[in-house]
């Protein structure tokens, strides 16, 4: 009895989370424009999607910014984590406080403060400014994913490598980096998804000429979202789902070995 209740409760919550998404996917196959009426099955929004330069352009910008910002933030962040870890106690505490500042800042304040910076320094807002903003909010997440791994590491294994004649660089490459790699990958994946989904910070740091999917959706929301957008998000959803399943399989395979 309690078991049925528990499962039913979880099922209800999942239903709550999935209903809007299912509705959205169904709408992407609706032949009519109206959200409310079902006018028959059609793939025409998927065809329109690939013909729409605005959406394709926004998709290109979203994906390239997500990739670039994830890669750059991962490099800077991993190096920073290794550096901070090697610091004395006091500068280390200072750097960690610095890392926590952007995490506690509301997105809207981050976005607006960056907008002020770009206007103040007369940098034209566009692709580069949006990329810089995304790198900025991604780096702390990379540091916070790599840091616990560094702390878990036995600090003597690095020293042992040095004692056995490894140069510090070789020891870094062969001892530290392999050990923290899971944290680095987590940080990179986290950065990629955060960047992909960001709206607020992008909104303030780009111009109307350079739009990612979120800002494009926002500007369309007032006129009414076109069903092509539903088609795109259904496709992206499925793509991410396949990616996750692939990653999961890889992980469970390596765990079995």
């Amino acid at each position: 009895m309690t078991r049925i209740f528990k499962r039913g409760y979880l099922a209800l919550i999942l239903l709550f989370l999935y209903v809007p998404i299912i509705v959205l996917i169904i709408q992407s196959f609706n032949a009519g424009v109206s959200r409310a009426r079902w006018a028959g099955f059609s793939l025409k929004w998927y065809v329109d999607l690939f013909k729409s330069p605005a959406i394709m352009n926004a998709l290109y910008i979203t994906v390239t910014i997500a990739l670039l910002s994830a890669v750059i933030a991962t490099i800077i962040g991993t190096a920073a984590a290794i550096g901070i870890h090697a610091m004395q106690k006091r500068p280390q505490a200072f750097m960690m406080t610095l890392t926590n500042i952007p995490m506690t800042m509301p997105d809207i304040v981050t976005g607006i403060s960056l907008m002020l910076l770009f206007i103040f320094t007369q940098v034209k807002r566009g692709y580069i400014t949006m990329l810089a903003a995304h790198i900025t909010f991604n780096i702390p997440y990379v540091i916070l994913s790599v840091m616990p791994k560094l702390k878990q590491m036995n600090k003597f294994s690095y020293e042992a490598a040095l004692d056995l004649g490894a140069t510090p660089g070789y020891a870094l490459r062969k001892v530290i980096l392999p050990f923290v790699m899971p944290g680095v990958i987590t940080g990179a994946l986290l950065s990629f998804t955060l960047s992909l989904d960001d709206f607020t910070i992008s909104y303030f740091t780009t111009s109307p000429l350079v739009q990612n999917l979120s800002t494009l959706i926002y500007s369309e929301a007032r006129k009414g979202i076109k069903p092509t957008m539903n088609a795109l998000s259904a496709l992206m959803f499925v793509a991410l789902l396949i990616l996750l399943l692939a990653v999961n399989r890889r992980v469970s395979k390596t765990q079995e070995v």
Partner: protein
Amino acid sequence: MSNMRFPPWAIWAMLAGLAGFAAMIAASVRHNRGVRRSLFAYPYGLWMVVFTIIPLLLIGYYAFTNKAGQFTLDNFKTFWDSNYEMNKQLIELGMDPQTLGSARGTVNVDTLVYSLWMAFLCTAICLFVGYPAALFMADREFKLGSTLVILFIIPMWMNFLLRTIAWMSLLEDNGLINTILSAIGLPRMQLMYNSQAVLLGMVYNYLPFMVFPIYNALAKQDGKLSEAAMDLGASPMLTFWRVTMPLSLPGVISGITMVFMPSVTTFFIPRVLGGGNTEMFGDLIERTFLSADNWNVGSALSLIMMILILMSLTLLRKVDPEGEGGSTI
């Protein structure tokens, strides 16, 4: 991409900087002629100064100056009384604001109070709905806990704007819910354009952030503790209240933080699902900056927002000094 407007040199400068940094790391990794590892954190420090510290200082600068760049506290007075500037001008013109009848404008304070109230309601609902969910997921008889975590994450991949807009097609006058209601003979309801709809949208977006940390705290608990309590004669209810629940508090605290903070500054959701009088503080800040083009008052509002968030964080840290349970997603 023809319509990307940025000077090409900007890319090259950035790539050159990054390549230089990468070369520095590579060189130090390969040869390592006495390069201290703490140097690795310097590019990050520089980045943070340029893109976090200076922007924050700019907000502080605009908040405490007027349009002419002189020091003033007027922006904070405008927060308290949105008619402050107007009344000031009236007084300068020799008129009496009392008789001309622009009393204290409370719109800014009201919006803040409304936002805090909505964020509180959202956090409370997420807690009361999310805690049982996390508890059932962490149940050791329930084997699908980790699968369910993934099922909770997947919806978050759908663009949050689109997810919010998707609720529109459910709640609209001709939407799915009303269609079902009228099909089974019940009267249609006005579901959109009110505070409840905004609250629904907020709970929908933030619920997973409450469930994860609580689930983590519960899942890593040693099951022997509750078994011991039961063996010693405690009822399941008492075991929950005296053992399981107190041990999950760090997760609860971090869940509250992760839901409350973004929900105070909720942006966009009120615009889509709410009506005319459901503006929240995030929208107010945006409107002050972009529509009203008043950076000074906008910065003051942002500063007030940040101070409030820092205060609530310190308060929550007091309850959970170790900051545990925050290691989610």
